[in-house]
């Protein structure tokens, strides 16, 4: 009798384990809190420390384009530096972000100047907070997450993650992040002002394997109802983890960022 009970117990446990394994993918989505989803998205978009090259293209309604190439370094959740490599007129310009602080260094003009998140060093729809993007969790609190009827590139129903700015100094007050749960990647982000006005929509495209465990959209496009007919595109390349000294993310180092390429 004792053996029978023991046998039944073992079989029940094994069946339970099997069932748990089968339901795991569903359970993962259901169990993750909004904040956990936010952390997952941040880590999916980039490793905590990395370097990458980016091309920014501003497209006007008549189809004319302006292109910029940047070399970017990021450390921890809120330190980003970007160096302009092209066009020649911008070459050597460096932007640095440490939390809410942003500076622009123009080699000929002078020392690092404070800039704001709402300005844009490249013009176009991307502002400085888009170009010097820190982890979303640094600036936003995740409030709710819900499944939508819309389907993502993987075929799964998209999740809508609602984010609220932690302070008034953040560029957008509210974000609606549409996530493909299978790819663990945003597909679309709608950015709103305090009054609920839609400022811009960011579209994440071409999920690419950059190697060393980094798989993320290689293209981010944006448009804005405030600038009808305009579009800006950001293309990522050569993204790879890179450890750097914290001294690199200081205003005195801005003139030397280009030596780290």
């Amino acid at each position: 009798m004792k053996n029978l009970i023991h046998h039944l117990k073992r079989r029940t446990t094994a069946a339970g384990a099997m069932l748990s394994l089968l339901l795991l993918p569903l359970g993962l989505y259901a169990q993750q809190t909004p904040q956990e989803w936010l952390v997952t998205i941040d880590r999916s978009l980039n490793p905590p420390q990395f370097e990458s090259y980016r091309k920014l293209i501003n497209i006007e309604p008549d189809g004319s384009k302006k292109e910029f190439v940047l070399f970017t370094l990021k450390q921890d959740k809120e330190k980003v530096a970007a160096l302009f490599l092209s066009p020649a007129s911008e070459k050597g310009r460096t932007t640095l972000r440490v939390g809410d602080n942003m500076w622009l260094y123009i080699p000929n003009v002078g020392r690092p100047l404070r800039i704001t998140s709402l300005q844009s060093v490249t013009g176009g729809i991307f502002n400085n907070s888009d170009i010097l993007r820190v982890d979303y969790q640094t600036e936003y609190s995740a409030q709710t997450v819900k499944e939508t009827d819309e389907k993502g590139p993987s075929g799964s129903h998209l999740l809508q993650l609602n984010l609220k700015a932690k302070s008034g100094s953040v560029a957008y007050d509210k974000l609606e992040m549409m996530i493909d749960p299978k790819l663990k990647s945003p597909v679309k982000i709608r950015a709103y002002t305090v009054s609920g006005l839609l400022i811009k929509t960011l579209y994440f495209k071409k999920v690419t394997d950059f190697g060393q465990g980094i798989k993320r959209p290689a293209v981010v496009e944006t448009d804005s109802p405030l600038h009808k007919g305009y579009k800006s595109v950001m293309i990522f390349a050569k993204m790879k983890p890179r450890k750097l000294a914290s001294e690199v993310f200081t205003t005195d180092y801005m003139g030397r960022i280009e030596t780290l390429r």
Partner: protein
Amino acid sequence: MNRLTQLALLVGIVILGFSPSRIMAQDDDLYSFNVEEFTKKTWEWKGEISASATAKIFNKESLLYSVKFPNRDQNQASEFNLQVSLESRWDWEWSRLFLAGEANLLRSSLEDADAENTFLREGYWQISQLDPHNVEIGKRLLRWGKGYAFNPVAFLERAKNPEDPEASREGLWIVQGIWIPGGFSVFDNSSVNLVYLPVRDDLNDDTLTVLEEEIFWGIKVYALIGTTDIDLYYVQKSEQGELDRGFDFSSNITSNFEVHGEYAVNHTDELEFQTTLLGLRYLTNNDVTWIVEGYHDSSGLTKDESKALFELINSSPTSAAKKILSQIQQRKTLNQNYGYLKASVKEPFNWLYFTPAVAWLVNLDDSSVNVNTQLAYTPVSNWVFQTSWQHLSGESVTQYGENSVQNKLEVIVTYSF
């Protein structure tokens, strides 16, 4: 470095620099990105060529006009200026060399006003072994301070011209050590700069008015506290036993509003002068950037003193008057109090690629005004087309009212490569 060597250096950089690989092909595919083109090379360079045509209309009532043109035979002048500037960087991993030079050619309708010059703007050697800390030796522009039009704490550099704050300036020969404490620091971001600047015959002797031989030691301590940048400055003149001190700050009050300030105490012999600057930058919702600055220099002339100076020009023989005129022209500011206001608008009324700007420079002591209206147009990458109109006005015996030029119109075309 003599002029011939500087010219040879500049020409060398140009000749070596033109290679077909620098001419970029246009991408047809929107998402294509040939990143290999941008990987780091041991030697990299960039250049800029700018051509400007200027028309100057003289103020024939001005005292300075009568000194410059004793025959009173000039109503206006036209000038053509061609400027080529080149920057080059070599990176050998263990050290780096930076060179930036400029060549100018000026042709004027005025007699004896034609000029040509070449000079090394900056040229320094950087030791990379100590990275992120740093030692630099050579000609370097320090760019101390946070102000846009004025920099009271810029003790060891050529003064900025508030009429054209973004104009490039020539550096001074220095040795600089930069220490960035990083993780050891109690602040979010900090650094310490130590500067050695010698003044000798033909070395830094054209800028800093000191004894024939002097050694300047300067120290700058920087810290980021919250959202505020703070610098402390201390400059010691070894031979004269004098010192200058100062501080500056810059802080973002909100995401579109920045305030900054500088304070400097300059000791000269037994005198002490204070220079103060307070300013702000504000970006409005409709993309207008406002820069406002107030400047006070206790070593400047009072309204009565500058009035007396202009009257002295009027009563002096020509040679003495020319000497006074030269002294006035060397000073970027003449009186004690100035106000600066600049408003620039990004693409107003959907005018694509246009950035109009107006800058008012006001001498608050004599109420004379220097207004500069600019229009920049950047239709394609690397090309900038600019027009500007500068108008100077004021009562008699005031700084801008007595300026020999009353109106200046300028068209500039700049191409970067």
